[in-house]
């Protein structure tokens, strides 16, 4: 017995000692101290390849935007989303007929290659107009399968033909001339369009048009999309980055430089927030930007509370601990955290398949049935329960902040009125028996709602909606599935109705109104397959207009025009809630665009006092 105890005891002591030693070694190393000013951001999902032609993923493009640059960018501190030159010297000159855009490029925007594998001296050559022409051609290359091609398809002279030729040959010929992409010299890019398309200007601020250095592709082969060679204020430090865990950006030592917006470039809202203090100062302010990949919301929240992440959108489960009645809780106030609430340029909606026999365009009763469903649903309640109040009911498809949004307009169907809903249902021949809407065939009106999602919350949201339809006698079948299955049903016009969302690609109401445009039927963005020739004609005219009050008026009219037809139930525009730690300076909410880390400053003194306390 004694011997056994001793032996077991020895092993136990040895194990515990080993653990203590290890723990001691680890803690003797101490916390890894940050060097210089570090801006800690997070991404809730893993990043995808850094190929500009396929940079449609929000998180990847946010990261890439700090390293790569386009011809244009959005003014950081303007109240609205205005474009300004970045690699271009000025906004392009536009010909009188609106078809030719001429860009002049800076001669000092140089690629930086930290690996030295592409440009031997690391500081690479300057970006030229040929790089942009090459980049835009890649969007049309059938072998690249760019998910940004839809923005350019049919608009640039000769590019569609070039794409077709590439398809036929099995390989793209980049040396072939494209009429719509001319480079008369290294710093002039001329883009010729086939039709008036004012929105094309925004595409030059989008990641799809970040220039690609061909030498970089040649040097890295197929692996080139795992890294980045850009012209921006930061570069990707691959030695400190860990794939799948964190991406570390360091100051680009060869960056041509830039300045914080001058006072006259700062809008009233930014000024009211005191964001003009750094007006005219040299950029960037922080030495390092770290993107932490944190897929789960709990550790993300804890890292924010511990000062390891500088700002975040409060997760649903932690919302109440941070915000009550749209105000910060005392705990947050004590930490010095600030709350930033802004409208997102987005919309969630239900699409009604206009090809469906029950309520589609071919059914004369369809309109009233769609209107009835709209009236039966309490959007405000949904927002209260599922969004913690972080949304506003949509009146039309255009969100606040964009031209065409009419704050005075009240959608007659965006109101919870089950009595009116029932009346409409009865008007099209249904009778109520035991609370059920029974049709002439003796069957209850049954509709199938398609949605994507596998979490409990998705099911609860679906069942919430079901309850409202049940209340007006409609039997709603909820079909919850994964995203690919859902999308394939929508694309094949098999979904009767379902839930969707759309976020702005650029700050133009056209981006939302196109969801009603006939030729955009699924697999295009119009999930409802709505077709209204009158709308289509007016849409073509309005979207060819230059931005301004006249166009805004047309957009507003178009948005109201489709309300009565109800091909969609426009549900809500979400609000963005951001919690910002007190040492973060110059942060201004931007829903579109990237490359904003260069404007951020970190107050190290405040961080030392407050972080982790």
């Amino acid at each position, binding site marked *: *017995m004694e*011997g*056994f105890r001793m*032996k*077991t005891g020895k*092993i*136990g002591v040895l*194990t515990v000692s080993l*653990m203590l030693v*290890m*723990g001691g*070694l*680890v*803690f003797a*190393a101490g916390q*890894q101290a940050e060097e210089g000013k570090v801006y800690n951001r997070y991404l809730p999902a*893993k*990043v*995808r*390849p850094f*190929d500009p032609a*396929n940079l*449609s993923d929000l998180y990847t493009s946010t990261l890439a935007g700090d390293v790569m640059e386009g011809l244009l960018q959005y003014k950081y501190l303007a109240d609205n989303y205005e474009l300004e030159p970045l690699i271009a010297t000025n906004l392009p000159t536009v010909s009188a007929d609106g078809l030719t855009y001429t860009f002049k490029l800076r001669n000092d925007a140089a690629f930086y290659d930290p690996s030295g594998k592409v440009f031997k001296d690391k500081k690479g050559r300057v970006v030229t107009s040929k790089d942009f022409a090459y980049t835009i051609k890649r969007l049309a290359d*059938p072998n690249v*399968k760019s*998910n940004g*091609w*839809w923005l350019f398809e049919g608009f640039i002279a000769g590019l569609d033909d070039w794409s077709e030729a590439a398809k036929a040959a099995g390989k793209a010929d980049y040396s072939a001339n494209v009429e719509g992409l001319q480079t008369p010299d290294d710093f002039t890019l001329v883009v010729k369009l086939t039709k008036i398309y004012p929105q094309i200007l925004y595409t030059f601020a989008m990641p799809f048009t970040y220039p690609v250095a061909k030498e970089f592709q040649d040097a890295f082969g*197929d*692996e080139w*999309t*795992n890294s980045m060679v850009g012209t921006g204020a930061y570069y990707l430090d691959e030695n400190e980055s*860990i*794939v*799948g*865990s*964190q991406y570390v950006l360091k100051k680009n030592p060869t960056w041509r430089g830039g300045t914080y917006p001058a006072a006259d470039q700062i809008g009233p809202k930014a000024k009211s927030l005191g964001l003009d203090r750094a007006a005219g100062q040299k950029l960037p302010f922080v030495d390092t930007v770290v993107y*932490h*990949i*944190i*897929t*789960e919301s*709990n*550790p993300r929240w*804890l*890292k924010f*509370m*511990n000062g390891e992440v500088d700002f975040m959108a409060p997760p649903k489960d932690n919302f109440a601990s941070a915000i009550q009645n749209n105000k910060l809780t005392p705990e947050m106030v004590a930490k010095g955290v600030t709350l930033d609430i802004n409208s997102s340029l987005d919309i969630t909606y239900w699409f009604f398949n206009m090809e469906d026999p029950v309520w589609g365009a071919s059914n004369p009763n369809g309109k009233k049935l769609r209107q009835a469903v709209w009236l039966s649903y309490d959007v405000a309640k949904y927002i209260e329960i599922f969004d913690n109040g972080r949304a506003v009911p949509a009146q039309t498809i255009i969100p606040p902040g964009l031209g065409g949004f009419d704050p005075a307009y009240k959608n007659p169907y965006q109101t919870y009125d089950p009595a009116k809903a029932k009346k409409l249902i009865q008007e099209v021949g249904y009778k109520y028996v035991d609370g059920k809407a029974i049709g002439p065939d003796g069957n209850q009106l049954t509709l199938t709602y398609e949605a994507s999602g596998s979490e409990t919350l998705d099911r609860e949201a679906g069942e919430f909606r079901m309850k409202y339809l049940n209340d007006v006698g409609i039997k709603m079948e909820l079909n919850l599935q*994964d*995203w*690919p*299955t859902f*999308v*394939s049903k929508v*694309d094949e016009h098999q979904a009767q109705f379902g839930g969707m969302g759309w976020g702005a*690609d650029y700050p133009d109401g056209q981006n939302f109104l196109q969801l009603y445009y006939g030729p955009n039927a699924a*697999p*295009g*963005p119009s999930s409802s397959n709505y077709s209204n020739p009158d709308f289509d004609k007016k849409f073509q005219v309005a979207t060819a207009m230059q931005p301004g009050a006249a166009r805004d008026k047309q957009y507003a009219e178009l948005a109201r025009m489709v309300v009565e037809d109800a091909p969609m139930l426009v549900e809500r525009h979400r609000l963005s809630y951001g919690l910002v730690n007190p040492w973060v300076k110059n942060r201004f909410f931007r829903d579109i665009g990237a490359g904003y880390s260069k404007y951020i400053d970190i107050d190290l003194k405040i961080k030392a006092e407050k972080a*982790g306390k």
Partner: protein
Amino acid sequence: MIHYVVRRFLNLVPILFGVAFVFFFLFNLIGGQKRFLYNMLPPKGRSVEQIEFYRHKYGLDKPLPLQYLDLVKQMVTLDFGKSESTNQKISYLIAKYVPNSAKLTFPAFAFEIIISLILSALCAYYRGGPIDKLLTVFSVLGMSIAMLVLIILGQTILAYQLKLFPISGWTRGAGQIRYLLLPWILWVAVSIGYDIRFFRTALLEEVHKDYVRTARAKGVSERDIMFKHVFKNAMIPILTYVVISIPFLLTGSILLERFFSIPGIGDLMVSSIFTYDLPVLKASVVVFTIFFVVFNLITDLLYAVVDPRVRLS
């Protein structure tokens, strides 16, 4: 012995054929092709042409038997190409991620087994007494608490409030230990309950056998009884339990990898399921199959070492 080992390795080929068939059958049964294709497409700007492009790229336009043979070829040659999500070579991903998972699970497993053996030996020795009862209660408690609950509690209390460990993250080199400590502790905490219960049972089965009574009657010390006889005989079921668990070490750390942001193979596998990253899914199935077969073989070999009655033939 060598013939036995060679024969077992050769068995891997038909096993892979079988695994390929089951994978292929299930994948097509659940409509995986369509899901996979549609997952390739962006949320905006989808087109029928893109669907056909990817269908052709992955050979999904070939007849089903040819698709199956392609799959078998990939599994046997271990050539799966690139991840569709990250465009990185799968061999690169496996080489990068498997060591991270191994660093997370193997040491934790070793601690778990050592601690469990010690505690279960105590239970067996002091069977029926207060120590045995206390440890039994502790085991049941450990078995009742879900890993997810422990992770959240661990991160919130131990990491955030008490600042004993980092909340999450990863790094290179020796600094990784800092980020592994809390996951190791949580792993051990959630696992030892099961182990103690099992090991205790295995030991007690031996303790009650006639040969132990005989040895005691002959004056053999308790230490010798426990370590020379009981332990050795209890090793066979314990060994089976331990070795069979090893292949699962790689996939069993999914929660820890996700919550602690450790780039491991478990998280990669789960992500590939959600993103329908077919090349990664196939590679994961094969890697796991090979691991399982190899560790089954190791189990059998160890049996022969531990139990002289076992002859490999």
